[in-house]
């Protein structure tokens, strides 16, 4: 409409999404999600040769193979892609901003969510269709 931007109307601060809070929580939960995956996967790989196999390891193997690797639940795998994408991009954003990039909290938040969702959605959609 007009070229010159007005200052911000800051009379509705208690309404709407607190982007910084959501972004940070998502980064934390995606980080934990990735840790979860990596821990399960790495321990399973490392203990494959242990015999006789105690129940824990059997369960662990099942978890790794059934849930994560074989992607019986596509949404779980999709979520993993999302987690990696979000955590990676969000981390990059933090680093970029520390180095001097000036990015708007709101737009970058939605951009990162959108970008991170692409591989996961793609995965679910393609496998789901096949």
């Amino acid at each position, binding site marked *: 409409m007009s070229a*010159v931007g*007005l*200052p911000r109307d800051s009379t509705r601060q208690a309404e709407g999404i607190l982007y910084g809070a959501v972004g940070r929580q998502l980064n934390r939960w995606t980080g934990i999600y990735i840790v979860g995956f990596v821990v399960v996967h790495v321990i399973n790989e490392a203990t494959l040769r242990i015999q006789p196999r105690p129940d824990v390891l059997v369960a662990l193997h099942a978890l790794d193979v059934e849930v994560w690797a074989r992607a019986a639940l596509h949404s779980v795998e999709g979520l993993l892609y999302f987690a990696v994408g979000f955590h990676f991009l969000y981390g990059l954003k933090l680093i970029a901003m520390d180095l001097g990039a000036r990015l708007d909290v709101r737009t970058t938040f939605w951009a990162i969510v959108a970008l991170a969702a692409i591989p996961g959605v793609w995965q679910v959609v393609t496998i789901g269709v096949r």
Partner: protein
Amino acid sequence: MTNVPDIRVVRTDVLIAGCGGAGMRAAIEARARDAGVVLLAKGPVRANHTRMSGGRYNVVTGLNPDDSLDIFFDDTIVGGSGLNNQRLVRILVDEALDRAYDLESYGLVWERKTPTDYLVVGSGGGSRLRTLGSFDEGIGVSEVMLHECYRLGVSIREFQMLVDVLQDDDGDVVGGLVLDLRRGEWVVYEAASVVIATGGTSQLYETNSGPAINTGDGIGIAYRAGAELVDIEHMQFIPISFVYPRSIRGYTLTEPQHYGTRHNDVNGEPGKLLNIKGERFILKHDAKWAEAGTRDMLARAIMLEIIEGRGTPEGGVWLQPDPRVFEQFLHERPIYSKRILENYGEKAARFQEPLQVMPSALYTTGGIRIDENGRTTVPGLYAAGEAAGGVHGANRLGGNSMPDIQVFGRRAGLAAAADARERGAVSVPLQQARARTHALESALRAAEGVRPPHLKSQVQALMWNEVGLVRSAPGLTAALAKIRSLRAEVLPRLRVTRATRVLNREWMEAIELGNMLDVAEAMSVAALERTETRGAHYRTDFPTRDDARWLANLYVRREGEGSRVERRPLVTIAPHAALAAAQ
């Protein structure tokens, strides 16, 4: 309350009431001279008027070759309609620059065009460009002073309210009685010097531009202690301010000229004022200057329009800004654009739609009479800043308060520290304090009566209607009688909802009301006495300025339960040609 805690006694050299610009400057000076200093703030340290201000600072820097100390002096006197104490004005003019450098040394950064050339702009009533400013405005001014106080080790007491000064048998001040609002406890500060820097009394008016703490406490306290007040009939009103929402009603929108091309071009047009019928009513009052006229004329004209029923339903008139100056306005005053956006909407903020405006009480021009060193007429009692009177006469130039609080804050601090050293230890009459605390706790004990906020709104409406922008003998006489009867009948019958001692706002307001009513009395007495129109003091029954009789000051002093008002000749210094010509 049954269990009244006894009074705590604290000894210091200099007690300063008021943590705004004047109080902090006095504290800095006294502390730098090794005096023990206690600085009181009625609320949190940052709750003061100085912080709300634009921080515009009038000073002759030498950067504008067209300006000089004499011209600054003359502008101030002409702006004050001739009533200023010329000795004080001379000091203001002469010392403003050094005090501006002091602020710079505390960390304030004045806006500038080159690394060493300050940006010097114009300000209401100034005939030359001589106003400095910093981007952080009054916030910056008060913040750097606070950090300087911290550096020097000034002890600042938040939520401690000066209630009265204590005097010995000769009437000399020996300390202050203070209510610690946080605990509800009484503290007596034993101090040879007490400085009043509690700011103005804009809260006396229903619609005002100031902070809630400006209830004129210090002026009332000094008046009760026997000090003389000067020019107290003069209250400055800003012509245009917000009309709604309620919280911001009265907050200044400055002057109409900033909403038109006149802002930076003396031949340009100011923003236009219109009444509900769409008439440019200002032309009836001042066809030549119209909306670029003086603040007092504008405020009065708008008020008359509202009183006579040609205002908006919300109680204002319309200001039609010029969309062409929007971008510049936004650049220079982003905070105003933000506030207009938030309160009146985007179209108004872009100057595509008229704004509702109304006058508002801004500045207490008169106050406690002081000499060149901030001494009042009571030994041991000092005053500085908006609480003091004399510097601005009948009307203050925009940007003259900032140098005032620096120059006279410093002088008061200096004198208070020196005198305290000379006087040595003093001791307070604790019985006097106890009698006073007993009376002040009556609101806590009362089972029935009037709640303080109700009396407060009554006083504010009365002052706004009768002792405000439009005054007359019948109105003032009635107001004075009402004020006296409220003080005699209702003030002692105030009661609080619950007798808690911790941060009891009603109790604080009850004490404030004592001060408000005393100041209201002095204002009405003086306003009734001055049978002419001058500056913002407009009498419908005496609508012209009368220099033959009234180029003189009014002094008001408490006498018994009443007050005594005296007219005395101006305080002048050797006149110089320019001033004579200007008058």
